[in-house]
């Protein structure tokens, strides 16, 4: 039946195209056509008719319904006088109007406002519309849309809204939406007069962790200036006090988790910038002052990759990871072959030479890209946040950096422990002469190790490009931190760097609320200086014969 009807519509459209040749064939589905034709009726309808039209619009279930009705509600729905076509304006009362196509919800240019007529509303219509929108959102197949709608409705609970929510609760299947609705209903029940219902409501609300709910409950236990309570019912008051205490307890628990997570994400950045160094410095014993500049190269690679593919920002960041690894890795190999290999066994002199390299790289970047910072666009999938509950929200970029760091770390571990190259690297770092005697090409291993460490630094640069400005000084600002992480964790021990970096990040974030960012950092630095006095070889010192030579 459905097939037949849509087939018919298709035929109809085909005919129209043949006859008139003017129907826009730009991929309009039958649903779109119906939607547009109902929307078209809006233009000349009376206020009461508009309410019915809105109702019919919402019954189409078209994805644009919410946007169109909200626009109507906020006086942002216009039609063009010249061709009667309906548009949404991005903002009300701004001339020229920046237009949005109601069907695709994509920007459709801007035009002076005098060529358009506003589709008006009045108070009565607006309240009906609000209900329609809420109703529509409540029946959306997307649970997060429903949850948003519930939370929006909880802010202004009147009779019809409560009725609507009750109705929805009966059929709702998603647990978090269900919880949201019962919280909203409980909030409404608080205002009632039945003591039992109110106590039940408080019991329900005490399971919430939302700030709004807490504030609402706190109102019940407020004492006014003359010493009388705003709430006269003793039982309700004590129940509310207990509920507030419970909510506060959970909120502080979640904020603790949040601090921990922030610390982890800061620590992940530290680990990420230190892993490459843990290889070049830790495994090879080379103090690479140009390590920061390798990260800078990685960050600039990200910028260039984005320049090359401006249409695909979302993928470009993924494409930049191998690109940055190759660019920085090659730079590392060249550096090792031309400079560092002459300086093995003289760690303090490599420091000077690599510092010279870092100056050259900084200036090279200044010459090519200018001294100004370059902006790297954050792709959409990295912005936004993951809302776990009312008290705990985790931003995606922090989450991704933690995951990314762990990924890179396990990859390095895998390379070092499970591949031929890793075996060679470990052999050379433990006993160069013996490794050579066993037929390992130590020179080649040196170059590869240095390339690997530098490449990882480049990959870290990709991550940094999302967190900070990409400029010639990017490397300098991270170099000290990365050295500290490696030294704190124990030179030559990757796990040390991981645990060292993470704990530095967490301690920093735990201190921050009490001391402020700068003092927290100073305390961490002093803490590490003192720690080194107690354990001069870091958290996980190397043991055995190799340790004596370090």
């Amino acid at each position: 039946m459905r097939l037949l009807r849509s087939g018919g519509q298709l035929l109809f459209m085909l005919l129209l195209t043949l006859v008139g040749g003017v129907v826009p064939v730009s991929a309009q589905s039958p649903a779109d056509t119906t939607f547009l034709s109902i929307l078209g009726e809006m233009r000349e309808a009376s206020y009461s008719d508009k309410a019915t039209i809105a109702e019919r619009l919402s019954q189409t279930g078209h994805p644009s319904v919410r946007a169109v009705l909200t626009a109507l509600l906020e006086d942002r729905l216009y039609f063009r006088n010249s061709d009667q076509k309906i548009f949404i304006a991005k903002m009300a009362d701004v001339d020229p109007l920046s237009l949005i196509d109601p069907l695709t919800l994509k920007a459709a240019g801007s035009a002076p406002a005098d060529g358009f007529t506003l589709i008006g509303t009045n108070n009565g219509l607006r309240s009906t519309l609000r209900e329609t929108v809420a109703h529509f959102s409540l029946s959306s197949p997307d649970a997060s849309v429903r949850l948003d709608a519930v939370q929006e409705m909880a802010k202004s609970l009147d009779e019809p809204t409560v009725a609507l929510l009750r109705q929805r609760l009966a059929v709702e299947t998603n647990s978090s939406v269900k919880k949201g609705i019962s919280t909203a209903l409980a909030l409404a029940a608080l205002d009632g007069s039945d003591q039992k219902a109110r106590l039940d409501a408080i019991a329900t609300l005490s399971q919430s962790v939302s700030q709004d709910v807490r504030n609402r409950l706190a109102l019940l236990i407020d004492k006014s200036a003359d010493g009388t309570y705003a709430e006269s019912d003793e039982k309700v008051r004590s129940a509310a006090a207990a509920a507030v205490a419970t909510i506060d307890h959970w909120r502080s628990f979640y904020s603790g988790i949040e601090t921990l997570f922030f610390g982890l994400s800061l620590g992940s950045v530290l680990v990420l910038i230190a892993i490459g160094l843990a290889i070049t410095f830790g495994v090879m014993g080379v103090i690479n002052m140009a390590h920061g500049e390798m990260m800078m190269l990685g960050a600039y690679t990200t910028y260039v990759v984005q320049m090359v593919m401006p249409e695909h920002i979302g993928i470009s960041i993924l494409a930049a990871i191998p690109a940055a690894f190759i660019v920085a890795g090659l730079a590392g190999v060249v550096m090792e072959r031309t400079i560092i290999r002459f300086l093995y066994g003289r760690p303090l002199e490599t420091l000077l030479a690599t510092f010279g390299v870092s100056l050259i790289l900084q200036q090279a970047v200044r010459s090519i890209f200018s001294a100004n910072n370059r902006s790297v666009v954050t792709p959409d999938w990295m912005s936004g946040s993951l809302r776990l509950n009312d008290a705990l929200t985790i931003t995606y970029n922090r989450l991704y950096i933690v995951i990314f760091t762990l990924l890179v770390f396990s990859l390095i571990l895998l390379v070092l422990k499970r591949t031929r190259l890793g075996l060679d690297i470990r052999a050379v770092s433990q006993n160069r002469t013996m490794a050579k005697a066993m037929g390992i090409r130590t020179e080649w291993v040196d170059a590869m190790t240095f390339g690997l460490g530098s490449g990882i630094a480049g990959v870290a640069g990709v991550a940094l490009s999302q967190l900070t400005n990409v400029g010639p000084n990017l490397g300098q600002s991270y170099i000290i931190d990365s050295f500290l992480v490696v030294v704190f964790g124990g030179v030559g021990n990757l796990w040390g760097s991981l645990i060292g970096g993470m704990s530095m990040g967490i301690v920093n974030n735990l201190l921050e609320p009490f001391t402020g960012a700068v003092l927290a950092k100073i305390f961490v630095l002093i803490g590490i200086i003192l720690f080194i006095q107690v354990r001069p070889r870091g958290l996980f010192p190397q043991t055995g014969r190799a340790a004596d030579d370090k």
Partner: protein
Amino acid sequence: MSSGDEQEPGLWQRTTLVARGGGGRFDRGAIWFLAVLAAVAFAVPVLNQVVPVSSAFHLSPFGITLIGKYLCYGMLALAVDLIWGYCGILSLGHAAFFSLGGYAMGMYLMRQIGTRGVYGDPILPDFMVFLNYKSLPWFWHGFNHFSMALLMMVLAPGLLALVFGWFAFRSRVTGVYLSIITQALTYALMLAFFRNDMGLGGNNGFTDFKDILGFDLHSDLTHVVLLVVTIVMLAASYLACRAIVISRAGRVVLAVRDAESRTRFLGYPVESYKLWLFVFSAIIAGIAGALYVPQIGIINPSEFSPINSIEAVIWVAVGGRGTLYGAIAGAIVVNYAKTYLTGAFPEIWLYALGALFVLVTLFLPRGIIGLVSARGKEK
């Protein structure tokens, strides 16, 4: 990987010979160095005060400041060379001692401004009025006396070095670990001094000084005198360092550098030798900083930045470590090159500086002095 320093006896033996070659008498390099210093001390007042402004040989005030700056850096390089070249302790935090000395002098100079500041407060420096301080913080008391500045520019870096070194050497923190934590130290101090709550001028630091001991800091004559004082202090610290390295204690210090464990087993208190040498080096750096501030006219927290410490190490490497006067020469040469290149070729000076460091470490492990003395021997 195997330890660096013990793997290159050739280099160390030779530098040891350089030091020993002097013995009680002065070697040729030292005599040359002192003679040049004396010549500068004589020439600068003449060229600035006697030669008329119109003459091509007149030394501008800018020139005096520049020479003064180079010589202060030379003193810092001397301090670094004393512990790096002779004791093998690579400090990447000497800028901290330099800046502490500078801040001690800066605090005195700030108190000297008195009512001539923008806000005209007789006691509080401008930045304190600006930040709503009601009274002078406790550590500012006494800085209206020059003697307090003299005391603190020795005491502040000296005590910091004593405490830091006592902890570090007692725990046997050596090599790169020590380098990294000295770097952390100066970094932490930089962050601390950037804070307005420190009561030390925040990120603006101290500037706009008026006079020192009643002499106008804007007059050429004061600058000439300051420069001569710097030269005298530089010569004095050079002689002091030289006296230390050729003394019996100096021999032990060399032994610590070349074979620390062996020296310890022979019964020498290695930690004490390292500690006192470190403290002495920090004091020289502090005095250098104190001389630097009135001549340059500004001190701010960026002086603490770890990069400055690394640069000081590089001056020493370029000049030739383990020679003392070589370090001073390195500081002057590198800084002159920096001044010249930033002015003449702002685009390429970092390339040139970077290449210089790479080439010196690769081809001139003993620095400019090594090159010169090798030439001398060939002849």
